[in-house]
């Protein structure tokens, strides 16, 4: 019997190694997997490369990993977000590396990684500083820049509901990077509000196929 539900968040992140690339879902606060981030803090992995839309807000989300000195590099589209002082401080002191990527490019690089493509050509950033050193080409008279596929060793994602196969539904805009980050990680770990018996999620309404998900953490009843 397939059962991807783990005993705890800590159990789910047990093998995240030092130096791992970790994709973290969420846009601003929505969809940020706080329980998995807490577990990763306790677990202790360091030198992480985080891929996230932002670079943490206040003392929440990935800012907690940054503040604890666990992060070597951040790949994101919008580090200068509300109360992003933890990241800004470390960045100005040269203690964390930043790779800045246009938001649509971040999503498409992950999609390419998750779907076995080498990369994509996008017009976003063509002719700008962010395209420097990258292959550029003209397609039908428009300029494009080549962006390499991006994959993670792990992803930490938050969803609304799952079943034991790892099929997922999300809650409103908390969906954001969740589906693509499940695809793009070797091990996708998802915290959910509840786990339903197999067959109760509407087959037409499953947003992320369980094929893309390796571990589920059920937060229902967890304190």
């Amino acid at each position, binding site marked *: *019997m*397939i059962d991807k539900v783990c005993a705890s968040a800590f159990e789910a992140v047990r093998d995240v190694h030092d130096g791992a690339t970790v994709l973290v879902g969420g846009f601003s606060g929505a969809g940020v997997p706080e329980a998995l981030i807490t577990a990763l803090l306790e677990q202790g992995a360091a030198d992480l490369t985080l891929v996230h839309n932002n670079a943490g807000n206040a003392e929440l989300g990935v800012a907690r990993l940054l503040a604890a000195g666990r992060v070597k590099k951040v790949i994101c589209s919008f580090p200068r977000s509300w109360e992003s002082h933890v990241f800004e401080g470390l960045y100005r002191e040269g203690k964390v590396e930043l790779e800045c990527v246009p938001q649509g490019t971040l999503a498409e690089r992950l*999609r390419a*990684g*998750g*779907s*076995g*493509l080498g990369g994509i050509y996008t017009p976003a950033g063509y002719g700008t500083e962010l395209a420097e050193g990258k292959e550029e080409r003209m397609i039908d008279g428009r300029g494009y820049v080549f962006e390499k596929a991006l994959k993670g060793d792990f992803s930490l994602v938050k969803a609304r509901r799952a*079943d*034991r*196969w790892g*099929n997922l539904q999300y809650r409103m805009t908390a969906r954001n990077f969740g589906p693509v980050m499940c*695809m793009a990680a070797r091990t996708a770990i998802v915290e959910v509000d509840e786990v339903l018996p*197999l*067959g109760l*999620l509407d*087959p*037409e309404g*499953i947003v992320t*196929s*369980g*094929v*893309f998900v390796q571990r589920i953490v059920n937060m229902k009843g967890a304190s």
Partner: protein
Amino acid sequence: MKSDWSPVSRERIAERVARDVPAGSVVNLGIGMPELVGNHFSPQHEIIVHTENGIVGSGPTVIGALQDFDLINAGRKAVRLAVGGHFVDHVDSFAIVRGGHLDITILGAFQVSASGDLANWSTGDRDAMPSPGGAMDLVVGARQVFAMMNLFGKNGEARLVERCTLPLSGARVVTRLYTDLAVFDLSGAVPVVLDLAAGVSVEALSYRLGISLQASASGISAYGS
């Protein structure tokens, strides 16, 4: 084929393939002989069948009034959805295929080479219709590629060959080959014979195919019995 060789039936080949699929695997079944493999999966094993047209968790084929031709597999046969099964669009379907999310793809073959090259999309005839379909994505994406075919063609020509003469679907992709006379592991330099049908020997088969074969170090199993 020599007269004292007893080829294994298509159902028994399918049964043998099904035995090599671990419980909980995500598997894509190609059109033709591979479609039979699904009939031999044990429900307790919860093997998730992916179809390239967008089912994750396909159940068996259905007949009569149960048929709904909006719920079909890649071979255009009406199926049932397994409990837990669901639908994906073509982009996600091939993301599953190419992105390393498929454990095994089981495909029919025209020709397979000793090093695992697969030819299954074009007979090479001038008036034939070349049809790659999903095959080229499947063979590069799946972690393992199992091929199924009769070992000799209608005119007695060998179909496991040193070099494919038909156009390739992928180079060095097939890991296991299941035929009516033998099962081969193609992951090494020389094909390794795992199972042999009654009356067949490695030496005689190697002679008839015109290629080197190795007997499995752990012994050869009786095939189809």
